[in-house]
């Protein structure tokens, strides 16, 4: 008995603080959150009356919430697409032995070091919706002013002040900030492919395109998957960037579930806020869990 304790006791003792803290502050709170989401506590007054999944069905039927889910979908597609394209391009350019690689790598990676809140304040100004041909257009600032002064005035637009596509403008700063990170992932992927494979392909008469199509890309798949998971789950949880760019939390144009949860919480609608939190958790889990299963299987092999 004592011998067995000696075997696993120290290990457990070492892990116990983590297990307890994670257990309480993550898993117990998730359960508590789920419990609140089943009650009818829509005001500050404490209420423990259970209403089953009514809050969820009401939310999913609410056009405002549907709009926020739609926004989330657009945001995720643009954010993912943008970071993958730019990340890949930059990695591809830097992969060729070029002068100043270290310098450019740092330049591309650097935006990631800035917090979303800090960059969001700058982007609020850059993405100002005023256009030069509108009344008061002489006050135009940011990107619209820049476009106008380089003769591309016709490209000026509302940015995020548009109920349908406004959310895509929020993806612009997000892409700017995280493309460098995706680049670093791809660059590591490129470097992990032995030079011998490329040489062998060339000797076999592969064109440069075929070399990439059949030799390089397949080996980048795991990197690509990691990038999709990491960027995808960041996009689903994106909150601080939107809050920093858009002054008012209640702005309909760029409402996503995370910001809507905040608005509900401030309005003391704890049940709805908790339900939105659970929906977000499920959405993120759908992205992350298959990835965790995939990697754990890959490790076993």
């Amino acid at each position, binding site marked *: 008995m004592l011998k067995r304790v000696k075997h696993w006791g120290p290990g457990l003792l070492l892990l116990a603080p983590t297990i307890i803290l994670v257990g309480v502050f993550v898993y117990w709170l998730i359960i508590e959150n789920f419990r609140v989401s089943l009650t009818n506590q829509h005001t500050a007054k404490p209420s423990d009356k259970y209403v089953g999944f009514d809050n969820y069905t009401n939310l999913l039927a609410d056009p405002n919430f549907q709009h926020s889910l739609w926004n989330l979908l657009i945001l995720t597609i643009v954010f993912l697409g943008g970071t993958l394209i730019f990340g890949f391009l930059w990695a591809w350019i830097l992969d060729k032995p070029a002068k100043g690689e270290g310098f450019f790598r740092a330049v591309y990676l650097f935006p990631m070091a800035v917090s979303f809140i800090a960059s969001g304040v700058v982007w609020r100004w850059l993405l100002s919706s005023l256009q030069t041909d509108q009344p008061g257009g002489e006050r135009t600032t940011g990107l619209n002013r820049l476009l106008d002064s380089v003769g591309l005035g016709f490209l000026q637009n509302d940015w995020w*002040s*548009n*109920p349908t596509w406004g959310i895509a403008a929020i993806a612009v700063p997000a892409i700017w900030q995280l493309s460098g990170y995706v680049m670093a992932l791809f660059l590591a992927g490129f470097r992990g492919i032995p030079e011998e494979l490329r040489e062998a392909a060339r000797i076999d008469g592969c064109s440069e395109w075929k070399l990439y199509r059949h030799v390089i890309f397949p080996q980048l798949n795991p990197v690509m998957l990691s990038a999709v998971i990491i960027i995808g789950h960041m996009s689903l949880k994106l909150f601080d960037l939107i809050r920093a760019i858009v002054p008012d939390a209640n702005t309909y144009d760029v409402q996503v579930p995370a910001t809507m949860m905040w608005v509900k919480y401030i309005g003391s609608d704890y049940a709805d806020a908790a339900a939105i939190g659970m929906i977000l958790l499920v959405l993120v889990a759908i992205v992350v869990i298959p990835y965790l299963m995939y990697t754990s299987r890959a490790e076993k092999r």
Partner: protein
Amino acid sequence: MRRSFKLLAAAATLGLALTGCGGSGDNSADTAAPASEATGSVGVFTWWADGSEKAGLDALVDVFKTDYPDLTFDNLAVAGGAGSQAKSVLAAQLKAGTPPDSFQAHAGAELQDYIDADQLEDLTGFYEENDLTSQFPADLIDRLTVDGKIYSVPSNIHRSNVVWANVDVLKDAGIDPEKPAEDLDAWIADLEKVKKSGKTPLAVAGSWTQVQLFENVLLASLGVDGYNGLWDGATDWKGEDVTKAIESYKTVLSYTNSDRDSLSDWAPATQLVQDGAAAYNLMGDWAEAKFTLDGDKAGTDYTYFPMPGTAGVFNFLADSFTLPVGAPNPAGAKAWLTTIGSAEGQTAFNKVKGSIPANTTAKTDDFSEYQKSAIDDFSKDQIVSSLAHGAAVPVAWLNELSTAVSKFGGDGNVATLQESAGATAEKFAE
């Protein structure tokens, strides 16, 4: 051995859980202790962290220190987001059962949530002890009273239906700054004149300032009874007159700056009027403090008048202070509330903040010209409660309506706004 490990883990978990949700139980503080014998520190929670608000709070604290030298003032101000940041911090503290000694809240419906949650002490006895009922206007007392009880002491009164205008821009557009438009249609004609002169007619900022514009267009269009009826169910949201009001709002909104959602708060919108880029700005009378602070002169640089169509109506909001259930130093909190309610406290605070005193016995001889006119108006005008500032409806209702108004700013769909506002009103009327 194994069992004791489990026990240890369980105990630790339980301990953490208890600290997390403990304290909400019965915290029977001795609320009977008189304010005059209070000692220790008084923690007061506000969102007055900078500008004229901070200056006003400082002036108030000076009076408090003279009144109660034995007490120390503990400033628990939380900055940001016109109070929304502070409210989330406060909500967490109240939920955890560790409230401050006194906290700021808009008087009226915003207090309802706290009252429903049994988080506020009844202050009716306090009003009687200090003879406050006779010193505050009856209209105000009516709006503070919930089921025969009063839960807060108002510190100041603001007016939301004031239009601020740039005199030069009006003159350039051929509008007489001395004679404001008499009703909504005349004002819309003036807005058109400004538009033709090439300036932005009306400056507005993000969501809450749009709600403020919306409420005042409703007030101008529906009149006092129609407007009040929207909140107590007497006015039908689906009615034709409401459709007409929302269409007027749509027209007025079409004269505003297109970058309204990008402006960080009300001040940049008011700044547009100061800079001569825009003619009008509808803003609560805290804008007066900004004009004064920036050295602008009333009459020559800027002028002000009640929102056209709402002359003779005072769209009111007030800040007030409370005594939360379970306050650590209730006697000290009562001392603080006594200073707030007193004539001296109100004079010191309101002179700096630019608002008007709720206490009618407060001395206002050296107040600004605008403040004097507002005090005069408040004594004779009809009073209605502001929507955008939590006086007319509870926060959750306001939030849903704000979302609808924000959505309207994008799609301009009158039927959708009317329908969702009506559905929200029905939901909360229950």
